[in-house]
């Protein structure tokens, strides 16, 4: 808090239903990504690297694993004095009944007491299920420079996809937001909101107090808070972000985001020593590559054992590819095992799933990526 007077709140309550079995037992921010990470490692590491030292994580859906995971703030270096990661599921309070978070804004409203204990000047709102690297300190500097009431990070998306996003129409010379349209049919701009906001806390606090009592509100930042600010004539600015950013909502996009890591000089660049992404430390062995292994274009991490063929694939912690097995254009989540002679193609094999001997899953010309979330029996 001392560093920049900004406190971060990460919205991590989302269920991510379109990820099917992957989010049956864990919330979307806890889904594995990139060999050794969980998605929420990205906003948390970004906070740590941006000099933000108090982070609240708002959890709700299947939060047991997520709660204990993020509570270990030491992993991201968020454990100094006056620093910490606070897990904030809905709770019963002296003056209010236990209520689920009714929307993104309500999740913050219900934790006004927590934020007040730090009385920050600025509040940073983040989403727990996006993959990107961003220096929030730069965004804050931009916010201050403009003397803004709120700043929203935006990214340029292809015009034809713009109608899938919340679009910010801005004054091109100043960057000031003149209009916000949620999923517009005829978008006027291609600046999509990334769901990253910096607010002046005093102002937001006032708005949230009013929003809580508004029976017509859906208690959502995009639908309620931002439009109110614009209607009130407040100064909102768009902070243009350039770089890799991915919201992995579906199996296909999760697979794709993993495949992106295979490109040489890929934009996310997890190998950048100046902006490391931190995660849970595991005690697995280094990667073991056997005498007959063939590895061609792959992203492989600790604990993997490869005796077969791996092509164009991402292998997560402790996954194994036995002799004569083939893993092509696929993602093996932590602990997945592909037994002898099995073939995995254009598939995403979920945590700890075994693909039996000589079994075949996925296919080279499938339209969608096959999610394998149950054990596939092989030949005996």
């Amino acid at each position: 808090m001392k560093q920049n007077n900004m406190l971060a709140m990460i919205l991590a309550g989302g269920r991510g239903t379109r990820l099917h079995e992957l989010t049956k037992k864990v919330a979307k921010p806890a889904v594995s990504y990139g060999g050794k990470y969980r998605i929420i490692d990205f906003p948390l590491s970004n906070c740590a690297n941006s000099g933000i030292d108090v982070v609240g994580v708002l959890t709700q859906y299947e939060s047991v694993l997520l709660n204990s995971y993020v509570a270990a703030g030491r992993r991201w270096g968020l454990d100094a004095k006056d620093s910490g990661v606070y897990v904030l599921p809905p709770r019963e309070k002296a003056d209010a009944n236990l209520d689920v978070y009714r929307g993104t804004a309500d999740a913050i409203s219900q934790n006004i007491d927590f934020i007040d204990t730090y009385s920050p000047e600025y509040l940073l709102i983040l989403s727990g299920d996006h993959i990107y690297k961003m220096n929030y300190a730069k965004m804050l500097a931009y916010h201050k420079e403009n003397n803004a009431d709120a700043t929203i990070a935006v990214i340029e998306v292809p015009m034809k996809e713009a109608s899938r996003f919340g679009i910010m129409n801005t004054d091109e010379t100043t960057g000031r937001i003149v209009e916000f349209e949620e999923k517009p049919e005829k978008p006027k701009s291609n600046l999509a909101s990334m769901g990253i906001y910096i607010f002046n806390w005093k102002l937001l606090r006032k708005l949230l107090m009013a929003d809580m009592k508004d029976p017509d509100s859906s208690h959502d930042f995009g639908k309620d808070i931002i439009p109110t600010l614009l209607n009130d004539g407040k100064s909102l600015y768009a902070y243009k972000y350039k770089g890799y950013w991915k919201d992995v909502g579906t199996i296909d996009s999760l697979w794709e985001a993993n495949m992106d890591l295979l490109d040489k000089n890929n934009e996310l660049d997890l190998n950048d020593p100046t902006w490391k992404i931190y995660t849970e430390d595991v005690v697995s062995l280094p990667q073991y590559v056997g005498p007959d292994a063939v590895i061609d274009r792959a992203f492989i991490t600790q604990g993997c054992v490869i005796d077969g063929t791996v092509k164009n694939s991402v292998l997560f912690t402790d996954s194994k590819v036995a002799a004569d097995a083939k893993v092509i254009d696929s993602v093996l989540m932590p602990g997945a095992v592909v037994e002898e002679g099995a073939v995995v193609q254009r598939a995403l094999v979920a945590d700890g799933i075994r693909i039996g001997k000589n079994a075949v899953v996925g296919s080279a010309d499938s339209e969608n990526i096959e999610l394998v979330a149950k054990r596939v029996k092989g030949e005996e």
Partner: protein
Amino acid sequence: MSKAFGIVNFAGNHISVDGLQEFRPVGAFSFLGRYRVIDFPISNMSNSGIDNIQVYIRRKPRSLTEHLGTGRHYNINSKRGKLHILYTESNMVSDLYNTDIAAYIENLDVIQRVQFPYVVIAPSYMVYTQDYSNLLQTHIDSGADITLMYHSVDTAKEEFLNCYTLDINKQKGVDAIPLNRGNAKNKNIFMDTYVMKKELFLDLVNKAHKMSGMYSLVDIVDEMCHELDIRAVAHRGYFAAISDFNSYYKANMSLIDLKNATNLFVNDWPIYTRTNDSCPTQYFDGSSVKSSVISNGCLIEGSVENSVIGRGCVIKEGAVVKNCVISANVTIGKGVHAENLVVDKHARLIRGKRIIASPEKPGYIRRGDTL
């Protein structure tokens, strides 16, 4: 919780590893890519419930203290447990005086203050896994004064040449602890691992100190073989002593075979080390990797065969790495052929196109060198 505290001892004067040891003590040597040698004794202790551990450092403490830190990563209870780093601080006139006994004498009050009846002593230059709680129980049940651990080998003529051995009688008692002079195939290599009562340990330290300024613990225990009940317990599983350059190279190479490695890395016996937050390793088009152990954070475009690759290494296009042990953050440049080498940290092999040593006498590339 264990009834013993742990001491991780340093390599004495009989151990000398050319090249690598110039930069750090053996315990801080990179091992199998992601580990340091000292991770093994400390993890053994931690897994055995010993969470009061003293690590003695004889010289060049920087890399070791940096690696050990507070010891949190060894899963030692952060309140009740302690990883204590202790130096011999006095300026010895000669290294000959810089023995483990001198270190214990200097830190006598620290040892005296420890509230455990037993001590387990293990070396920082040997690689093995062992449940010390079993060893301690065996020791207590036997009623012996001291229990020593050994590993039987049939390669003592060529290997373990700087190590001590145990002469064991039929009752499993130890008669003497001579150095291995390479005169016989079969020897019981002393693993420099002791269990005894703390009080006896202190007695021996004081006695040794009075008898000779150059004595180390093994000398006084050898001397006491006929006065005390000293017994030997055999160790099974993987065992390596990093006692010279070749043994360092061989120990790494021997673990490339996963079957061999499973004798060292046994189930439910994690070997802890300090995390480096490296990302996974990226294998590019055209890379070829076979029979190798690869750490995280590498970028591999070339070919790697029968080698151990440390964290954050870059193997460029057309490079060939064969039978090498490569430490962290090494670059092997475009088209460079490296064979039978130990490459120390931060070295860059970029200009010489063929850097090949003989398989019998592997080469050493110094830390930070550019070739």
